[in-house]
């Protein structure tokens, strides 16, 4: 069939999966107590929060009255309607990116994350995630690049020189990387950095304090401003490295590297990328470990094919035989690697972002589950899960379409 027909069919097939994912989210959300749902998904216009069923009666400080904001939240969200109506409402909201609001009592809402993040209470979850997403995307792209550069040639080599030192070394590397948790790598790095910088650094409150030596080398800039992100006239994130730029620059795209290039600050753009190298290496190391085995095994399978035997029988030099099928196979493997990596990435992001002080989506997600029962933020939690699911689904579609483009036999299926 034609290419575009295949693309359309593939895209249409994904719709029940997406609806199914939303149904799973809905089942989880509907198990939450009603106060949690009104707290996270309703945007109050006044000062009274919808998070409690009762409030102190105005004028009678010893009595509790039912909370009118809570009641209006219940009716606005349709929480007293039958379950299928609630499901339909939720699916509609999820598709239109209305993922709730940061609740006031959560760690994110009160700013009690211990990380210098101001209070985000009342902000729309989707807007916040779109603010922090570019950092994660930059980190992901750099990690992907490193993974492709390292795993495919190394995997091919260890298949070709099987059981030789190259293979053994790559086997050790892949096993060790597979077994090393990302946070262990990151924490060991932090401990090493502590000793390298000569003892624990001075307090690093960005707002009103001096930044530490650590933050001169690591961490993403611009750091979030110390006043609320929105609703303020005082723009200007702080925390740019002082020796590169004074003052601030506006951020039209949200991607720090791209913004720096747009302003013509090429050293600033380079600095951004350099700050991302070590975190990207940490993420990539774990992913490379798993992929190295896969690349090696698929290359071995190809090398056992009949057409390779024929090529050797024809008298082609070995190097040419290998280049022939390495070239033939590596594109296929590349795409599979891309598809498989993406889902495996996501485990590493929150950890690496916390350890290296990068302000990405993973970190916001981590701050929404930190603390105990009272400081969880369900809007951000489920919003981030939906976001990453959308990304995984999109990545899978792209991978399938690339397969179909490269191998016409797939289109017949």
């Amino acid at each position, binding site marked *: 069939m034609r290419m575009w027909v295949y693309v359309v069919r593939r895209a249409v097939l994904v719709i*029940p*999966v997406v609806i*199914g*994912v939303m*149904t799973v989210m809905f089942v*989880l*959300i509907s*198990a939450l107590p009603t106060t*949690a749902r009104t707290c996270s998904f309703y945007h109050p216009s006044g000062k009274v929060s919808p998070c409690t069923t009762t409030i102190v009666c105005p004028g009678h400080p010893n009595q509790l009255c039912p909370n009118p904001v809570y009641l209006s939240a219940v009716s606005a969200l349709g929480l007293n309607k039958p379950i299928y109506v609630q499901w339909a409402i939720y699916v509609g909201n999820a598709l239109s990116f209305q993922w709730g609001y940061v609740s006031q009592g959560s760690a994110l809402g009160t700013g009690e994350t*211990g*990380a*210098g993040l101001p209070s985000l209470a009342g902000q729309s979850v989707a807007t916040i995630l779109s603010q922090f997403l570019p950092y994660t995307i930059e980190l992901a792209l750099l990690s992907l690049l490193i993974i492709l550069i390292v795993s495919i040639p190394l995997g091919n080599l260890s298949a070709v020189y099987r059981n030789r030192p190259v293979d053994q070394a790559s*086997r050790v590397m892949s*096993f*060790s990387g*597979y*077994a*090393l*948790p*990302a*946070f*262990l790598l990151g*924490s*060991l790095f*932090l*401990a090493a950095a*502590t*000793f390298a910088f000569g003892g*624990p*650094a001075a*307090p*690093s*409150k960005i707002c009103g304090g001096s930044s*530490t030596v*650590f933050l001169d080398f690591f961490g993403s800039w611009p750091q979030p401003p110390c006043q609320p992100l929105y609703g303020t006239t005082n723009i200007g994130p702080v925390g740019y490295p002082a020796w590169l730029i004074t003052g601030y620059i506006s951020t039209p795209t949200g991607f720090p590297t791209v913004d720096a290039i747009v302003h013509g600050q090429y050293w600033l753009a380079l600095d951004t990328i350099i700050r991302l190298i070590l975190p990207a290496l940490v993420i990539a190391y774990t992913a490379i470990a798993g992929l190295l*085995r896969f690349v090696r*095994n698929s290359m*071995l*399978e190809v090398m056992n094919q009949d057409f390779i035997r024929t090529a050797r029988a024809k008298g082609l030099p070995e190097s040419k035989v290998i280049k022939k099928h390495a070239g033939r196979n590596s594109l296929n493997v590349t795409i599979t690697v891309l598809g498989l990596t993406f*889902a495996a990435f*996501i*485990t590493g992001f*929150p*950890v690496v972002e*916390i*350890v290296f002080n990068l302000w990405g989506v993973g970190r916001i*997600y*981590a701050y929404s*589950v*930190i*603390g*105990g029962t009272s400081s*969880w933020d369900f809007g951000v*939690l*489920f919003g*981030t*899960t939906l976001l*990453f*699911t959308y990304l*995984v689904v999109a990545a899978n579609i792209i991978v399938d379409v690339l397969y179909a483009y490269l191998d016409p036999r797939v289109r017949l299926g």
Partner: protein
Amino acid sequence: MSVTGSPITRRPSNFRRNLAARWAQYRRTWYFLRRNTLALVGLGILLCFAAAFVYGLYYPASSSVPVQYCATNGVTVQNLTGGNPCYDAPNAICTYPAGSVAPGPNCYQTPVDNPNFIAPTMTLTGGLGAFPFGSLVYPSADLSVDNPQFYNTYDMLVKGTVNSVSISVLIVATGALVGLMLGALSGYYGGWVDEVVMRITDIFLSIPAILLVIAVIIVGKSSGLVTFNSTLFLIGVAFVIVWWPFYARIVRSQSLVVREQRYVEASRASGASNGRIIMRHVVPNSVYPVFVQMSLDVGTIPLLLAAITFIGFVLFPYPLIPEWGSVAAAGAEILTAVFTQCGVKSAVCSVPWWQVLFPGLAIFFFSLSVNFLADGLRDALDPRLRR
């Protein structure tokens, strides 16, 4: 590989021949495994872990006697038996035995019936600088590092081995069982059953594993369905929910191949029911990739658990559950807090590297050895890679 025929016509000698053939196959697999040095190393390390597991089972835990601790600012330890103004003092953290009423704020219940509970103390046992095991610092719930609790690292590691290994094995076994059943059913019957099950696995595979696990755990705790003692059970349930689709997919693709085989056709011709065919033919012949995947997953689950615990390690609030991941996460949290809190709060300006390193090493060697074994198993079972 398996002999068909209804039970009436099967003679006892066929059973012996069956068994001999199966046994010969196991011996062959063991022969190939033996030739792989790395797999043997992995097996050796795993045997050490098994020994540590047995040791941990019999290691005395602290839960048999309910005790009450109270301390202010991490300096004094008092062993209390009754009402005491200590409970109302600022920065006091106290415990009370199960079955009685909480005497004050910041009090948590000691789970008397949890066999793996290690009680915290308020003073350093062996000091923060004691090498190599020393005391484990657990920051208080508001992350202020101001009023830490101290656990004996050695106790936590020993009991942690028991918890981590048992939870990994149980999760993998249950997930594999569920996935095996569903995958075999959907692969064998085909049609709309297959479509439905495959769509469901697609849904669960699209959601990143760690996010779904955390969401299930959080919803489970918020909806009030679980108490403290069931936290590990809740985690197990969350992991099984996330993990079964992998196995279902593997088994389904294998059973698609198996159901076209001659012996299945012969079995159907001699009147075997569908259930019998699935149990006797489809399942045993689809199970080898499942074994390989199971051994890989036993190595992966402690890592995932450690990552989850690191992200929001107050998912396990007081007291700290002895488990590799939570111990390492508490240490790593201290490490990251050093950069922000030292100088502001005095409790931690030294770097307790040992409480990150030792559980980290345990996770590392456990996963490593399981991966070696799994790789050797895969090489031994797959004829194409056997050279």
